[in-house]
């Protein structure tokens, strides 16, 4: 099949672009090397929506950050996903660094950030009593927010899929060439794909993809900048109510402490440039560094309540600017490269920008019927006892709790499996429903979720994976079972 547009990468940028393009009459396909959407940088980040005072004034990063932030309320309402403007604070703990807050404020004004305020020590402590005793002042930005990065990415991809965009998983791009027919021929491990236009939204791999088609004087190198995080139990999710940043440095926005939209507390990230583009391993030094830094700005951090730690990679490029546009000498090949922080915040705006760009280039026409909304997996905890009873009467699976930490029922898991671009692995179920994301970290529910995946998808137990590839959970039957089958 000849596609009008192929998007490489089903992270939050690729999914946002796919959703925007699904508005138009065009055959669009997303190629993703992993088994699910949201498998790279999009799944391991701070889960926050930046206000937009960090990026250099006049940069594309600043523009898309502020625009993405503005779009978030409507988008999250349309996609039925949680988003909360909890406000962010950049905390100053050294008197001599106080002018830095004013600089940030001024930059925020230039970038179009609304409602900012510089707080005195007293005002800051009143709003956030667990700030360090050393706090000298803070920049408050009420438009800062918290969001579920999985849900944002999954919802945009699902909505794109419902509007006709194809997704090909486990499909890794190996080479891209423009043939004499004027079309892009994309060689993958799953055969060749041909397309008029290509969008490179390959995250930490966007440099590699770019370099497949760019001229010799136009090579880019994406440096994976690893960030370690700790996620803390919901019991201590209220330790701070705003997203607390230190003052930024040249390595980034520093170690933040924030509630998550699901009620946990997140601490991170560190910033270490590495070579391995899949190097998402945490290190003892990283975690120790993290804890030390977070304690500078927030006191009494209950680090004994860590339920998991993880690392994500930011797609850093030396210029520290989003690279969005047609590649020189590669007509109809659009880069969406070097999307590092604030990429999650910017994603709706990136989708809008690239969507408009392609609409103009390709002279796309709007579909007569485009469905802008989707319904998220239901949260039965929001229902009254009577409503929940009614639900269970109609769909008994909602009465069967599978994940006891997060109180997720079989009904929600079935929905996650059977909806568009449904879950096929334990992590797929986890990111869609939160089953396994609680304090026991899937100890209780994983055998039960496996049973459901086995039954619903016809997968054998040995075929069920944590997250695709070779991440199989079990290897073979026990001796006794093998004997019994003979």
């Amino acid at each position, binding site marked *: 099949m000849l596609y009008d547009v192929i998007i490489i990468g089903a992270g939050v940028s690729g999914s946002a672009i796919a959703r925007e393009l699904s508005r138009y009459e065009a055959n669009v396909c997303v190629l993703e090397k992993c088994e699910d959407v949201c498998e790279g940088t999009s799944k391991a980040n701070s889960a926050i929506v930046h206000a937009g005072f960090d990026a250099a004034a006049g940069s594309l990063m600043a523009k898309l950050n502020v625009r993405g932030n503005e779009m978030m309320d409507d988008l999250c309402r349309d996609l039925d996903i949680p988003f909360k403007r909890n406000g962010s604070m950049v905390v100053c703990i050294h008197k001599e660094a106080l002018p830095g807050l004013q600089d940030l404020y001024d930059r925020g004004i230039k970038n179009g950030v609304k409602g900012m305020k510089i707080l005195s020590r007293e005002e800051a402590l009143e709003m956030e009593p667990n700030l360090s005793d050393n706090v000298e002042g803070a920049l408050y930005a009420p438009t800062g927010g918290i969001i579920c990065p999985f849900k944002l990415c999954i919802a945009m991809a699902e909505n794109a899929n419902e509007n006709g965009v194809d997704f090909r998983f486990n499909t890794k791009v190996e080479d891209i060439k423009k043939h004499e027919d004027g079309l892009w021929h994309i060689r993958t491990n799953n055969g060749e794909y041909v397309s008029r236009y290509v969008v490179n939204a390959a995250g930490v791999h966007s440099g590699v993809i770019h370099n497949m088609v760019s001229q010799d004087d136009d090579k880019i190198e994406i440096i994976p900048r690893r960030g370690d995080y*700790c996620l803390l139990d919901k019991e201590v999710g209220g330790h701070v109510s705003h997203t607390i940043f230190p003052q930024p440095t040249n390595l980034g926005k520093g170690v933040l402490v924030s509630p998550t939209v699901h009620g946990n507390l997140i601490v991170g990230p560190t910033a270490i440039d590495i070579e391995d583009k899949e190097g998402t391993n945490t290190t003892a030094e990283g975690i120790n560094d993290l804890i030390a830094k977070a304690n500078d700005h927030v006191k009494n951090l209950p680090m004994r309540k860590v339920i*998991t730690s993880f690392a994500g990679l930011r797609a850093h490029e030396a210029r520290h600017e989003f690279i969005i546009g047609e590649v020189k000498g590669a007509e109809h090949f659009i880069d969406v490269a070097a999307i590092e922080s604030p990429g999650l915040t910017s994603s709706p705006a990136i989708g809008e920008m690239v969507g408009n760009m392609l609409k103009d280039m390709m002279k796309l026409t709007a579909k007569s019927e485009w469905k802008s909304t989707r319904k998220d997996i239901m949260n039965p905890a929001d229902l009254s006892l009577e409503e929940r009873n009614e639900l269970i009467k109609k769909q008994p699976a909602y009465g069967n709790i599978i994940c006891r930490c997060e109180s997720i029922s079989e009904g929600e898991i079935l929905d996650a499996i059977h909806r568009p671009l449904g879950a096929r692995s334990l992590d797929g179920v986890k990111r869609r429903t939160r089953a396994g994301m609680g304090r026991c*970290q899937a100890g209780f529910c*994983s055998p039960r979720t*496996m049973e459901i995946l086995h039954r619903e998808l016809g997968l054998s137990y040995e075929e069920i994976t944590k997250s695709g*590839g070779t991440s*199989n*959970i079990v290897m073979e*039957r026990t001796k006794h079972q093998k004997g019994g089958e003979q």
Partner: protein
Amino acid sequence: MTSYDIVIVGGGPAGLAAAISARKAGVEKILILERDRELGGILNQCIHNGFGLHTFKEELTGPEYAQRFIDQVLDEKIEYKLHTMVMDISADRVVTAMSREDGMYQIQAGAVILAMGCRERPRGALNIPGYRPAGIFSAGTAQRLVNMEGYMPGREVVILGSGDIGLIMARRMTLEGAKVKVVAELMPYSGGLKRNIVQCLDDFGIPLKLSHTVVDIEGKEHLTAVTIAEVDKNMKPIPGTEERYTCDTLLLSCGLIPENELSRNAGVEMNPVTSGPVVNESLETNIPGVFACGNVLHVHDLVDYVSEEATRAGANAAKFVKNGKTESGKVVELTATDGARYTVPSTINIDRMDDLLTVRFRVGAVYKDSYVSVYFDDERVMHNKKRIMAPGEMEQVILQKTKLQEAAPSKITIKIEPEE
């Protein structure tokens, strides 16, 4: 709203014994709520023997031990519901439960017995650095997969933590043909029972490395290797001591945590040392009519002690149902110091206590040729020599009501004291 005299949350060994005991004390309307597909709790996956030596004077497997109690529950026609999750317990003892068959519903309970058991500490809580691939399991999850679902996680195994489930799984995986390469334990002593170290590791030639921990996990999709290292006195890995083991499975047996979400939401006061409720001599929490027993109260080593404790909780709940709350009597506080980490119970009402009361506790380190001493105020009234005490083995002392009445102390202290 339906009502029951006693609602028991959990149909494992604690819940079963509590139910039987309450019925024997004459309580009619008893309901056990169990979330799994059968009664018996975690015993159903403990197919090894060694259960019941104290209770039945014979060695049973976990399912056999459970069955003896299940049979009594059936004989006594005690009501129970399976596949039923308790969603909430209120301070006035309204229990909200849910199942496929019955939907979501509420029960007014005369008394509630908390018997939810415990869960395993997951990898995340241990802050082990490295990748997060498939192939890492808590030991109990692996036990369920192997013993109940009939699947092997892998063939080459490293175990972190020497808790009893980890030790049992070392043997189990070996019997299933896997190679268990090493058991690493962070502490300078094992967290498990001595007999399990002998029968599950020594007998199979599996090395136990004390004062060691995992410092790296390799494998982007599936586990390929782990590195362990020795730790110093502050539990920090010592550079240069790293040893790398290729493996496809890492089992974690690094402690059990009582499962008290429901208790906390109900307003039950918690003991930070046990992570279980603070209880009095009747195993009653700060909420009148709410009792706790078994691993939800504090983690036990032997199910026999769980059954014994739960039997008391059941009898006391029965008393509460019949007599209501009794305010009278002198309450004495129990304190654990000098190596004793906690006591269960935390307080004793001398008037209400039985003639003999077993007080259980754990020590915080290994003690050789030391004494368990009990003080009534400043007077030492008990001084029992123990050849060895270790954190992995629960200790107990038995207090006599007559002696307490006689001495009428204002506080009782349990200490570990060296030889004089």
